[in-house]
């Protein structure tokens, strides 16, 4: 069994948790990318745990670092409910946009996709391919056209066709490029001229290290991120940086993605995630 259960049985049966047990727990948490500062605080709290409630107490310690903000998607009565998908390059934005579209389509909601990545070669075609597979309308502009114009047009289209959901895919951008961040702010601003943006979802790749925290902070400052999509959890990475983001910035993880197929997305389940972290 994993170290977690070993540790718990030691905590439960006696007080003989050795220094090396704590070191191993520390190593495991660090290996999950939770980050040295939060790991230290978790270990300090865990050291206070004694007795037969150890299991739940330790889970509680980890759960406590999670955000208390609601994890459900904020859907509005007025149509459309609009989601903006943002993040650094290659994290899985386009795939996640398509997966979310399929998810809501299955619930018999009408969905429109906006292809506002007008920068990367073949990004529009990539989303269109998904659109074709799902039979969902994809609004796009000419290559190298203004992403804000495409976003604006998709918002108009979604409003005029009384669609339930509008999902806008944006180009990958590194948070330290201020011109690209301004461009993103503009995309959001022009959409809001037509319809409120219900969710700004930041896509974080589970393999991301400590830089993920800076990403979340800068994207939040710029476009007020409302939730995280944690992708590539089907790999060996645990995505602990998302826990750091929750603990530090109070932004909730809303979705997890676990593969390249359209159905590989699910609402985030905190307890299962914590279990998985320590498995």
């Amino acid at each position, binding site marked *: 069994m994993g170290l977690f259960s070993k540790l718990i049985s030691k905590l439960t049966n006696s007080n003989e948790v050795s220094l090396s047990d704590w070191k191993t727990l520390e190593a495991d948490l660090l290996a999950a990318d939770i980050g*040295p500062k939060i790991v230290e605080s978790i270990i300090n709290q865990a050291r206070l745990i004694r007795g037969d409630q150890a299991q739940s107490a330790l889970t509680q310690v980890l759960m406590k670092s999670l955000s208390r903000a609601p994890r459900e998607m904020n859907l509005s009565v007025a149509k459309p409910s609009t989601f903006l998908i943002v993040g650094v390059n290659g994290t899985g934005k386009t795939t996640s946009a398509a997966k979310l579209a399929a998810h809501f389509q299955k619930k018999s909601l009408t969905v429109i996709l906006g292809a506002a990545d007008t920068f990367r*070669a073949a990004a529009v075609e990539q989303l269109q*391919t*998904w659109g074709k597979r799902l039979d969902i309308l994809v609004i796009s502009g000419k290559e190298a056209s203004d992403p804000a114009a495409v976003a604006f047009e998709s918002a108009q289209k979604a409003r005029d066709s009384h669609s339930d959901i509008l999902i806008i895919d944006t180009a990958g951008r590194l948070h330290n490029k*201020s011109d690209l961040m301004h461009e993103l702010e503009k995309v959001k601003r022009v959409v809001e001229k037509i319809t409120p943006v219900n969710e700004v979802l930041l896509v974080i790749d589970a393999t*991301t290290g400590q*830089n993920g925290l800076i990403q979340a902070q800068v994207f939040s400052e710029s476009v007020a991120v409302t939730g995280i999509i944690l992708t590539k959890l089907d*790999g060996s990475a645990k995505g602990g940086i998302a826990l750091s983001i929750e603990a530090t910035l109070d932004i909730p993880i809303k979705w997890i993605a676990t593969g390249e197929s359209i159905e590989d997305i699910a609402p985030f389940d905190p307890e299962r995630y914590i279990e998985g972290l320590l498995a």
Partner: protein
Amino acid sequence: MFDSLTSRFSSAFSSLRSRGKISASDVDATCVQMREALLEADVALPVVEDFIEEIRTRSLALLPSLQAGSNQAQAIFDVVNAELTRILGSEARRVRFSKKPPTVIMLAGLQGAGKTTLAGKLAKYYADQGNTPLLVASDLQRPNAVTQLQILGQSIGVPVFAPEEGNGKGNPVNVATDGIKYASAKQFNMVIVDTAGRLGIDGELMNEAVAIRDAISPDEILFVVDAMMGQDAVRTAQSFQEGVGFDGVVLTKLDGDARGGSALSITQLTKRPIMFVSTGEKISDFDIFYPDRMASRILGLGDVATLAEQAKKAFDPATSAKLEEKFSSGEDFTLEDFLEQLQAMSKMGSMSKMLAMLPGAASMKKQIENFDEGELVRTRAIVQSMTPTERRDIKVLNGSRRARIALGSGRAVSEVNSLVERFSLAQKAMKAMRGGSMPAGMAMPAGMGASVGKPKQVPTKKKSKSGNPAKRALEERS
């Protein structure tokens, strides 16, 4: 809150430096700080522990031999620098060309690492050196990866072998094999094979990569890895090494602010050298990897060598010579010269990227991040809207001319006024400085027009002789 490795190291060492005599417990305290800094920088835990242990032992051994009053902190700093450089590799390895062309390069890595873009960059890099690369589109998985490669190939004028449209259809092994055959028949001397992203733990897809490898016997397999990657980089790299195996590593997205500690872990644990770095979305944002530069960047010395090289590339030597001539002969530096400089600067890429390479950049991170790139663009627009006469002599700029320029550049008259005002101040300052040894190419722009926090803080020249060879060489040159 989110200090990079650079700033963490800087602070660890400045507290060490501020002491006179260093004791064993000072070394220990620094090691604790260094451990946290390395973890924050995503260096894998086992690598961190080994590294710290090595530094501690070597530093402690060094202490008694140091003369009282000698710079002990510097000595320890040198130990750290040497050890970092050693792990990162002593020099950049180049691609091994096959005796029997074509030389075959295969790219492998996780989803989203940046393989397709990198394929284009590699092709351009080798084409510029007189090779004839062929790009082969073997990523048939991700929707429109093939289209992406085709567009890239077209933009750089490199042919793309793409018999299958992809999107889940076609056999990547056949495409790769046929690509090599095609390249041999058509006398391409190099083939770069893009493959689908795959997880290290996905046995089936790893076998597919092995099948591609066995079918084309690449001369180099390059493992492409995102510089932002965390602790899992080691595990992933190891499973790729055991799976397909690789000869070299390419670090991508180094234009971000992640310090790329995973690079340290990967080379240390797989014993494979980092060969190239990818530093932006443009095809030209690509370079070979310099271990000493990376080490000095990690240590907060700034990447001066890269900066100097980019400046050399961007500033046409004739223009620089002309400027220097003007400067020393007492002629006025005009807006026309300034425009030339602005244009050269935009060739160098983003200003914040350049500033970040300067030594001491870690301590002015905020200013650099807040640097408004748009300011340069706006300034250039204003100068471009002037007539040559106006550029040569700003004294002719009366009210109506200024209004016309504002209209032409789409800026406010007040912005034109402020530019002219600052320029005439700068002109005066230049006159006063005349005879100094400022390199002409770099003289004006930082202070002009741009609203970088306090440009004066940028230590363009330092008195100290650097312990870093690249940096020292540069100091001695200037």
